[in-house]
């Protein structure tokens, strides 16, 4: 073990490294040097989830998106769908945030179409992809069916969506297929994500499929041996049972 002074031992026990201005004037967060693990109370990175004020869609876009989601995960006899889960609000907030901007993605050119195995190659980050695609979608529907997508019958809506998925309907400014794949993926996200993000309102989707939510201890249930487990569904910010009625 390295030979260190008593002072350093004490230092390491009590106080952790923090962002130090190094003697040489470097700007970097530095840790170690015998100063122990950094810790202070209240420190943590709870989820950043945007607010109701975060919005990207125009009213027309919102209507179109809500209608699409309602066909991807419909409300029916079997149970609630994207509408009850308020997936459109989730998508609105996502498009308004770093995800919609593609901020964490590599969005440098040149852009090319790519093969099926090369993933997302649109020059547009998600929010602008949505914007362009929704405009083209409504334009297509007006031309073919005399109404925007949200105004079509459910049968027609399904037909159009199938056309996007199977690439019989092509858009000009963006790939219709890429848009379809993305909105399906995002709709599933919005349906099942923690309610803190705006969708899965009141944990309706989790309760629908029997997912107990954000629990962290199932030791008492490891021996379930194939029997169902009844547990109240809970989210990151809790459940009704946490407060007196």
């Amino acid at each position: 073990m390295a030979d260190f002074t008593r002072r350093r031992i004490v230092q390491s026990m009590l106080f952790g490294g923090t962002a130090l201005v190094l003697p040489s004037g470097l700007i970097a967060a530095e840790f170690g040097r015998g100063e122990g693990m950094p810790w202070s109370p209240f420190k943590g990175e709870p989820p950043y989830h945007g607010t109701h004020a975060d919005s990207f869609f125009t009213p027309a876009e919102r209507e179109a998106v809500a209608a699409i989601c309602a066909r991807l995960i419909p409300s029916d006899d079997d149970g609630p769908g994207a509408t009850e889960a308020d997936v459109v609000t989730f998508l609105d907030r996502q498009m308004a945030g770093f995800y919609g901007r593609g901020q964490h993605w590599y969005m440098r050119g040149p852009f090319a179409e790519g093969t099926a195995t090369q993933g997302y190659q649109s020059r547009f980050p998600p929010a602008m992809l949505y914007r362009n695609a929704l405009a083209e979608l409504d334009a297509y529907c007006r031309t073919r069916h005399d109404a925007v997508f949200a105004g079509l019958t459910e049968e027609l809506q399904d037909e159009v969506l199938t056309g996007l998925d199977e690439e019989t309907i092509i858009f000009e400014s963006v790939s219709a297929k890429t848009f379809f794949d993305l909105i399906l993926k995002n709709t599933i996200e919005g349906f099942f994500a923690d309610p803190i993000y705006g969708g899965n309102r009141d944990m309706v989707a989790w309760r629908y499929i029997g997912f107990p939510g954000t629990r962290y201890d199932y030791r008492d249930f490891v021996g379930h041996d194939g029997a169902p487990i009844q547990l109240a569904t809970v989210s990151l910010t809790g459940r009704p049972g946490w407060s007196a009625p």
Partner: protein
Amino acid sequence: MTRELPGVDVVLVGFGWTGAIFAEKLTAAGLDVLALERGPWRDTAKDFATTFAQDELRYYWRHGMFQETSQSTLTFRNNSAQTALPMRHWGSFLPGNGVGGAGVHWNGQTYRFLPSDFVARSHNEERYGRLPEGMTVQDYGVTYEELEPHFDYFEKICGICGKAGNLGGSTVEGGNPFEGPRSDEYPNPPMEMTFSQDRFAAAARELGLSPFPVPSANMSRAYVNPLGLQLAPCTYCGFCEKYGCGNYSKSSPQTTIIPVLMQRENFTLRTETEVLSIETAADGSRASGVTYVDTSGETVFQPAEIVVMCAYPLENTRLMLLSGIGTPYDPRSGEGVVGKNYCYQVMSSATVFFDEEFTNGFVGAGALGMTVDDYNGDNFDHSGLGFIGGGYIACHTTNARPIESHPVPEGVPGWGSEWKRAMRENFLKTTTVGVHGASMAHRSNYLDLDPTYTDAHGRPLLRMTYDFTLNDRRLTDHITPIAEEIARGMGGREVKVNALNGSYDSTPYQTTHNTGGTIMGSSPADSVVNRYCQSWDLPNLFVAGAGLFPQNAGYNPTGTVGALAYWAAEAITEQYMRQPGPLVQA
């Protein structure tokens, strides 16, 4: 004019599993060690506490702790005839970032490669004859026997939970009868299994196979490791792979090494610093240090006596290429070594759908599983089969996270009412029998620098050229039916086979087991580093990680990555420090 800092004994490029291992061993030997990590500081209570770790959207779908592609990514194509395009967001693999690297969000499945895996060429050629042209499979240059004490130590540092199958050459009931001889039992007993594992094990035994518990870095009980660090019992929360563990029950650099390192005065860690290149001395005889940039934007030169590359196979390979160290691999001529033998993993599975029984996938852990090794490595006779290697077949219960896991039976559409209903009906009643197949090296699968796309600093991105090979397809075609057979014996209503079809698709998640690019071997003609993980070109440069593997075996790589890191660290302290210079004569 790049500012020069005071020199240190050792610079570690990257601070994940291998960085932590080297830091601990080299500081214990009295060296001044500086670790440079591109990402931020990460620790349990701050970054993935039990109060918010269970957030599917944030950590998986929005890549909360993975490398940001906007900062660095790679380009990909299936073959040389195509143009490689950037992986604009991750899909098939999820490189780590920040302190602890991918060691924070791995599953914890911790295997040792088989003795025959380390001599894949000589062993297979001896048994089956010459390997096909184009298969660039090679021997590692180090044997299982030499690595055994280091496997043992890494398992003890991690507290791996399992059952030995071969102790000192004698087969032991309940473990893997095919494993290489172990000097000691696992430090902790296996995890308690759930319903799905019980059904799998019974079905496997019916077929004459030998199931054993997956060696797990999710603790089966409270444990104190050789450094005095404490790991708590796993609570089966089902947020393991892709997530950090909130209650100290998964082995990671944070739980097994870092707190002790933080007490050592001769260890320094700088975060948010990105190494741009490894510098070579003017006479070309040694590495002189590294150039890096921190968040101030300033570029500095950090001199060092020893440089260890711990930045993950992809970044390690790219850094060597950008720094002009070693001869880049040329797939046309087959000459050169840096970037050669990129390998991955060959995955397939069979999903079982139950009618009455609940598999309750949310009661899960990353390495909770039962597995059989009867079709791994050379554990079965390959005569006439036309391929080498194999894979384990396992039934894990790791999660039932709804965005990620909502299997539906064959023929169900991808959206709409029918899909929704099928999803609900089957959500809590499925499990999967998976094949984790070896990936043999081929001259057409390699890494090099992209000619077009650059990162934020203007440096070329790494380019990956990779597709499944004939060996891969024959391997998966042979073993997937066995997985299916086991699955059909588990008492479900139906089984859906998810076979490997078509070209390698970089979009759906498979594994984060990228190997090769900086391979180890016995000759500088066909490897980047020697058997001590020391560069053939610069004797004070060492390389860590799965980039060392000449080809990938049918196991998760971390156990072998850890053993090789301890092996190389020992070579530095016991050999190199006493007599600096090449440890192997070329």
